[in-house]
């Protein structure tokens, strides 16, 4: 459950893809095109098919976040995202350029030594085998950026940006974690405000981070979310806070809240799975996010609660960022601004593990 905050077009009239994605999800939820399917409860996720793309749904993403360690024990955070988006256009268009589906990808690396987030993004329409999200198994490509799930369940990520890149292999160590009602994940009070959602926590990472053209060997642990939906957000929503964490004892925590415009929450959810696979779910009223410390972005002047207190029923979690400046500002291209950062967690004041925190909807809309 990760997504980005809308902003308005900047003066140059650049692409505001995220804006329109968000806009479609939030405002046109009721005016669904009949071609796209709604998310309904009771659907049984089937693997490996559901690892692949679901073209009948408006939007879908594969979202990988994780912690890496270089050979000299320096920590790094990384984020890899591929979106697939179905437009309402061109469905009868026989052209190979017909923009029926768009593929959008984000790549980010948090390095405490650099003091800020490095990120790159790309967008392209599906076609010519240059960009695609294939059904059947996870296989996504955007020019030379690829995410592929192999037959044995291992994911291969290969993304080379202009300044940095990743070439990682991610091996599952646990079962997939179906969120909420067997993978039917509610996002709001209305039953259609939902997505299909599973996570793969505790992916064991090996590979290399490429910086300045040189590969640096890394190992680490990552979290993968795969989510697809047609209607998603409640119109009253302002943004959301999300976290997914691999805990040291082998358990996995996922929690989110969807904030209401003007304060309060529209919806919240949390799940904790222990190492032996027992799931504990928390109802919306049992999940509470409380900012501990905010950080003001010097780039966008947005205030982000980068240190967060989360309560799930009786359990108290504290999230501390790897570094403050993990804001991803792509307003020059896709138009989204959000904070996506590596964090360490304590559980009831005991060091518990590492994960990622996502904060959307905090940046001020840019005025034209």
């Amino acid at each position, binding site marked *: 459950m990760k997504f980005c905050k809308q902003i308005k077009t900047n003066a140059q*009239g650049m692409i505001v893809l995220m804006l329109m994605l968000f806009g479609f999800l939030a405002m046109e939820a009721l005016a669904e095109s009949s071609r796209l399917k709604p998310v309904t409860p009771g659907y049984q996720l089937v693997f490996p098919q559901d690892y692949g793309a679901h073209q009948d749904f408006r939007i879908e993403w594969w979202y990988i976040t994780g912690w890496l360690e270089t050979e000299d024990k320096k920590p790094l955070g990384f984020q890899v995202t591929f979106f697939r988006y179905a437009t309402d256009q061109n469905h009868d268009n026989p052209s190979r350029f017909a923009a029926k589906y768009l593929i959008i990808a984000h790549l980010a690396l948090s390095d405490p030594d650099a003091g800020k987030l490095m990120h790159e993004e790309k967008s392209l329409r599906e076609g010519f085998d240059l960009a695609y999200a294939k059904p059947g198994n996870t296989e996504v490509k955007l020019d030379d950026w690829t995410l592929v799930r192999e037959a044995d369940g291992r994911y291969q990520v290969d993304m080379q940006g202009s300044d940095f890149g990743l070439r990682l292999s991610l091996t599952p160590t646990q079962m997939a974690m179906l969120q909420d009602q067997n993978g039917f994940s509610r996002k709001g009070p209305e039953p259609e405000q939902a997505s299909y959602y599973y996570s793969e926590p505790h992916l064991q990472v090996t590979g290399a981070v490429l910086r300045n053209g040189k590969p640096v060997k890394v190992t680490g642990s990552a979290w993968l979310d795969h989510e697809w939906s047609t209607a998603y957000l409640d119109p009253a929503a302002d943004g959301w806070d999300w976290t997914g964490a691999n805990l040291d004892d082998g358990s996995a925590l996922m929690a989110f809240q969807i904030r209401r415009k003007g304060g309060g929450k529209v919806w919240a959810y949390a799940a904790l799975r222990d190492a032996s696979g027992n799931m504990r779910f928390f109802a919306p009223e049992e999940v509470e996010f409380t900012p501990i410390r905010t950080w003001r972005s010097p780039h966008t002047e947005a205030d982000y609660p980068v240190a967060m207190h989360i309560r799930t029923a009786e359990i108290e979690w504290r999230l501390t960022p790897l570094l403050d400046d993990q804001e991803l500002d792509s307003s020059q291209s896709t138009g989204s601004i959000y904070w996506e950062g590596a964090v360490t967690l304590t559980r009831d004041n005991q060091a518990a593990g590492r994960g990622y925190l996502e904060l959307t909807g905090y940046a001020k809309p840019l005025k034209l």
Partner: protein
Amino acid sequence: MTTATLSRWLLAGEWRAHWLQLSVALIAIAIGVAMAYSIHLINTAAFNEFSAASKSLSGQSDLQVRGRKPFFDESLYPVLVNHDGVAVANPVLEFDVAIPGKAQNRNDHKLKIIGIDMFRAAQISPDLLGLTEEGKTLDRLADDAIFLSPAAMEWLQVEQGDLLQLNAGLQAVTLRVAGGLVRARAGQRIAVMDIGAAQWRFQQLGVLSRIELKLRDGVNHAAFKAKLADELGDAYWVTEVADQEKRIANMSRAYRINLNMLALVALFTGTFLVFSTQALSVIRRRQQFALLRVLGFTRRQLLRQIVTEGGILGVIGSLLGLALGYAVAVLAIRLLGGDLGTNFFPGVKPGIHSDPWDAALFFTVGLVVTVLGSIIPALEAARAKPAVALRSGSEDTAMAKLSTPWFALICLLVALLFTQLPPVFELPIFGYLAISLLLIGGIALMPRLTAWFFSALSARWQQRRSGVVSTLALARLANAPNQAAIALGGILASFSLMVAMAIMVTSFRISIDHWLGRVLPADLYVRAAASGDLQADAQKAIAGLPGFDRLDFFRTQQLTLDVNRPEITLFARPVDQADARNTLPLTDDMIAPGALPENVMPVWVSEAMVDLYGYRVGDKVTLPVGATPSEFLVAGVWRDYGRQFGAIQMQLADYQALTGDLSINTVALWVRPGVSLDAAVAGLRQLPFGAALEISRSSDMRALSLEIFDRSFAVTYLLELIAVVIGLLGVAASFSAQTLARIKEFGMLRHIGVMRRQILAMLAAEGGLLTALGMVLGFVLGWSISLILVFIVNPQSFHWTMELHLPWNWLAMIALIMLVAAALTALLAGRRAVSGEVVRAVKEDW
């Protein structure tokens, strides 16, 4: 009293007394500079704007890949995206769509539609991304959306949110104006659509116009370009942005340079006028200067005085000229457009930007010319012995040096030689040099010719013992030929240029008229209204219509043969097998009918192909027609005024056999006798796709073509008019200067009993005779120049030939007007000189 004060006094005195000559000189300088400067400004502005507009379409790409034909298969796109060294590959589909009801102007009724992929274009040509309504960014991908530049919106009279109906082939397409292209250049009429939508809506599935490449950092552009060109083979061109600029420059180069040459000729005429004004003014004051010398003025001081005078005139005149030139340029662009109505730069609205260096250059030219005009007479005045110069009547001897015929004869000889030389960089440089030398030589020969002619005339006249007035006038002209010649120079220069231009334009116009008759033999021409083609079923439907005797199908296409040159046009059409002259306006350069070998594919090439690509009759040439390039035999050369960059005609049957492409663009229809054109058109309109057809009558097309021709030459007419005004100013200046200088002579004549009326008649006769001679000589000179324009300059710069035609009526009329104007001018100038004070006039001499 210091020298400076004296100098100031002398200047102020002179100018106060002769303000008329002063203003004429100033106007002459100003007009000369203004002409050259304004044409330079207009040309530069139009060219820069056109080139900037073309560049803004291709963005900041490193390389561009194009096909030899306008479109190529899109399968190249993924190949280039995945190519090593390519950072971004931006596919572009570009085509023109005719706008119904905007066909008044043959070259200017099309909307350029550019199909882009917003994600790729964002990295290479972000200016082409349309500005959508807020929250509707997806419109950039929409299959029904189109984005228009402000100029296109104004032209089509639509706004954001309106529906726009366009024709794609025989079908109508309705698109939604989803927004604007705010970064388009002023006046640029373009539209942008999603590339997939454009391919679909305009029936261009599977093809692209070009792919723009951005290379990865560190990739050597030249090496990559060479390697890619090698990999892609003959069917594609790999070009850099610089190549494209060169191509654009080539397109309009001949036109721009010709116009600049005309401006220089105008400056030259102006120069001559300045020279004659200055020279006459110095001569008139020979006695004054001699007096100064006697009073202790040194030669150097005198020289400085005269040159300073010329310098001040030059500064003021050139500054006036710059201001005037700027104003004229702004006005001309506003009224006629940047190409002065010729459509060499379609779809741009340039603004005038004055580069201070250019202004400085034209200022300097004006100043230098004026100072030079002063130096020659100043040198003579300084050298003259004061004692001789103080005496009256020595003026003509001052000019005697100018009458040496050798210089003139050498000029004329060299000019003759230059006409035999080939073009330089495809420009008729030697042709223009020959024209200037002819003018210089002609003018320099003038004093000698005047003396000869009027001496002979005067000798014959005296035998007949005729009246006082004519005797006096002839005696004056025959015995003081140098001053007369200077006055004549202005008339000669302007009249000969006018004659030359008139003959050239008339020859051109009549040739075009004949040619139009040859190339538009049918009654009606039918095209699909957009860029679309007529497919087999439509062809059949048209062929099945009653009321036509004959119909010909044409397939036209643009081909790139040389990447640095604009595209050529390929026509595939039925050409008469027995004798191609029945179909094409062939020149004599052809393989005789019947001598054509069997089993070859003949092509007929335009004259431009011969000049630009070296095609000769009998050559075997390879052209990229069909899947693989094929060999053709050049069977003849035809005259083409429509396409100066080259055109080729071939048999439609050959084309169809090679390409398998059975679609056509144009149908020529001959209406059966007894069937009215209106009925025939109505029949065509009743076809199922009749509304989408563009039907032209050949008579309308002829009229339209000639109208465009006349508009293109509007600027030439303007230049001619200015040349006439300069010439008349020259007559006025010389005569008023001379008559004033001759006050003593008139005083003497009055004393010996000549009536004032008779003196005036004498002046008018002098003016008339002089002008008549000037015009006869001007005609000879102008006719020679027109030969150079028609047979050298035009073929060398535009690659077409024409027949010579002389506009006798027009020439006679202009000659008459100039004759009367010159006589009147002489008369008016004389009135002042003979107005009383006879006694003082004579006294002044002593």
